């Protein structure tokens, strides 16, 4: 019986769902703000040159994309990443936040749902956003650090595709939450596992693949600005 379901949570993808930007914007921001003009120019040039590679890797899999993408962070210090995260929020993420996102989270919270961000971005970068939007928890990628510097790898499990669904399932079990009464919001077909694991999936500004699935499954589709 639906009425017998326990308390749930609302799980949100970030890039393309709550914000109009994606991981590449984050990378370019960090590259632009590397120490010293020369380093900054060099890292920006390399990052821009890498964009076709990201697209190619994403066509293979989200996993492949992550492996290629996060190499570009190699050598950045954790302190620098943390420090720049505040500016990243103010200059990149907050302006790109969909105007309806905060209201969606607020109404969702009013329903007694735990608010949880589940993103392929890395934890240091999204920490200010998690704080400002009042998320209760966050499942994000973690950069592998050695001697205080990013190695260019992620600490497994890499948060993408089915791993997001696995993380949500484990989180719900740990926190005693009902997946049947939980919500998930995402924009991409790569997030299909995350959407499929909850009882109330919602496509937000979906890509063509997810749009097709949402139509077939009768899932609600939100078009936010």
């Amino acid at each position, binding site marked *: 019986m639906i009425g017998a379901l326990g308390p749930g949570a609302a799980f949100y993808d970030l890039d393309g769902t709550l914000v109009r930007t994606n991981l590449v914007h984050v990378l370019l921001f960090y590259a632009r703000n590397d120490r010293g003009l020369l380093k900054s120019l060099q890292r920006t040039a390399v990052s821009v040159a890498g964009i076709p590679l990201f697209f190619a890797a994403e066509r293979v899999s989200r996993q492949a994309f992550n492996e290629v993408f996060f190499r570009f962070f190699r050598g950045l210090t954790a302190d620098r990443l943390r420090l720049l995260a505040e500016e990243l929020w103010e200059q990149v993420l907050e302006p790109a936040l969909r105007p309806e996102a905060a209201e969606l989270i607020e109404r969702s919270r009013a329903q007694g749902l735990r608010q949880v961000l589940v993103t392929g971005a890395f934890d240091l970068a999204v920490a200010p956003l998690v704080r400002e939007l009042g998320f209760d928890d966050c499942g994000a990628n973690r950069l592998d650090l050695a001697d205080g510097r990013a190695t260019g790898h992620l600490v497994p499990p890499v948060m993408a595709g089915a791993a997001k669904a696995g993380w949500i399932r484990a989180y719900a079990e740990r926190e005693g939450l009902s997946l049947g009464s939980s919500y998930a919001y995402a924009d991409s077909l790569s997030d299909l596992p995350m959407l499929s694991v909850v009882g109330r999936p919602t496509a937000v500004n979906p890509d063509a693949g997810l749009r097709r699935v949402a139509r077939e499954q009768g899932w*609600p*589709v939100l078009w*936010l600005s």
Partner: protein
Amino acid sequence: MSVRLRGRPDAGTVFIDTDSAPRVLHCGESLLEARLPVGTRVVYPRPPIAPVSDAHEAIREAIENPLGCDPLPAQLRPGMRVTIAMDDISLPLPPMERPDVRQTALEVLLPILAEAGVDDIHLLVANSLHRKMTESEMRRAVGDDIHREFYPDRYYCHDAEDPQGLVTIGTTPHGERLRLNRRASESDLLIYLNINLVPMDGGHKSVTVGLCDYESLRPHHEPQTILDSDSYMDPARSALSRKCERMGRLVDAALNVFHVETVLNNRMYPPELAFLAKNEDDFDDRDRLKLRAARLALDRLPWSARRAFFQRLPAPYGLIGCWAGRTEPVHERTLARCFEQYAVAVEGQCDVLIAGVPYISPYNVNSILNPVLVQVMGPGYLFNLYRGRPLVRRGGVLILAHPCYDAFDTASHPSYVEFFHRLLPETRDAFELRERYEESFARDPRYVAAYRHGHAYHGAHPFFMWYWGENGRRHLGKIIVVGAENGYVPERLGWERAASLEEAIAMGRSHVGRSAEVTMLHLPPIVIADVA
């Protein structure tokens, strides 16, 4: 020519004889032809009343000679704040040929306001918990010029979930709290521009429903109110109307409302489909050819193309009346004219009632008639198209024709999917559905966001649609559907399925007896049966 078998038929009814032509029924986006048993009574709509010769002039005349208040120009002063609220896409059905009557009325109203020095004017679509209209629909309703001047800052849709945009008007002695659109409520003058197509529309319902929030709808959009309405198409015997009137008195006390009500005739078919409103015995060769061509074409097209075909045919409605002034005297005149067009006298109830369900309802303009909306058309609206007594007797059988496809428009009706697939398998009891689930759907953040920021019906809307069928469901002994493409949609709605109309009638007779009186309601256009 059919022989009238059973005494003298009422105007608008014929009886089927051995040489009668097959009757044509709408079946969603297709047409059925069926031979009805000899003796079947067929109730036809009245012919369209001739429209006024000059719609602008008729509206101007009403505005300058209002009922129960000063003429509009005398109420205006420079600098005042005026809101013109108007009915949404659900009226008229189907959408009318351009110019829409809203455009015609605005072309009269706006120059009067301008001449009086009123420039703080907002145009507000009174969509209540219906979906917000798209920009192209809004443009079509008021015409390009007015749209260009007002949209989007001063021409927009009501938002029943905007906490800043609503204001409490008061509470009735029965404890019913009314909250309305802030702009409309805080205006010096609220002009409501209504299109009356069926008698449940208009009057106090226009403002109290069209501009309210979810909480304000709950006292009357609930199953007991529908059960207490006999029928909700008969305002004098409608609990729904009585509750709206109670709330309307709060509006009259707090707001200055100038009501403009228009009545359209029932000329809903464009010339190429006008034969569908005729008695089939009167078809000429050209009508028969058109029918054959339409059936051949429609049967070969996919559902989406059939839908597009019908939805691209606007109705050539004509204005047959306009009154303005205080809500109650205006609505009294409107209703009288409305019944003049739609009421058909019928002698006695039947045991088995047949009706085709067309492709459109008030809730799926430019969209899909999903299973919950098919339901609201059957035991909801079609059953309630009566005054006096229901056309079908208590315990009788309703036979509907519709494909009952399991298709939903998730942009327009996202919460309908969950309602149909998750709730109905659990219970069809309207009271239980309201008690256990309505509020959680209404508060569901996805549905609120889809209503506010998209073009979706409110999360609670499928519940209202289910309640709308409550008096029909309780009254009828059986509902049988013909033409259903699957078995589970009818089953989930609590209906039975028949392969043909002949089989459905046989099933109906086995339920109510072999001597059953069979009646077919030949619509659209709409018929209100005055059952003696």
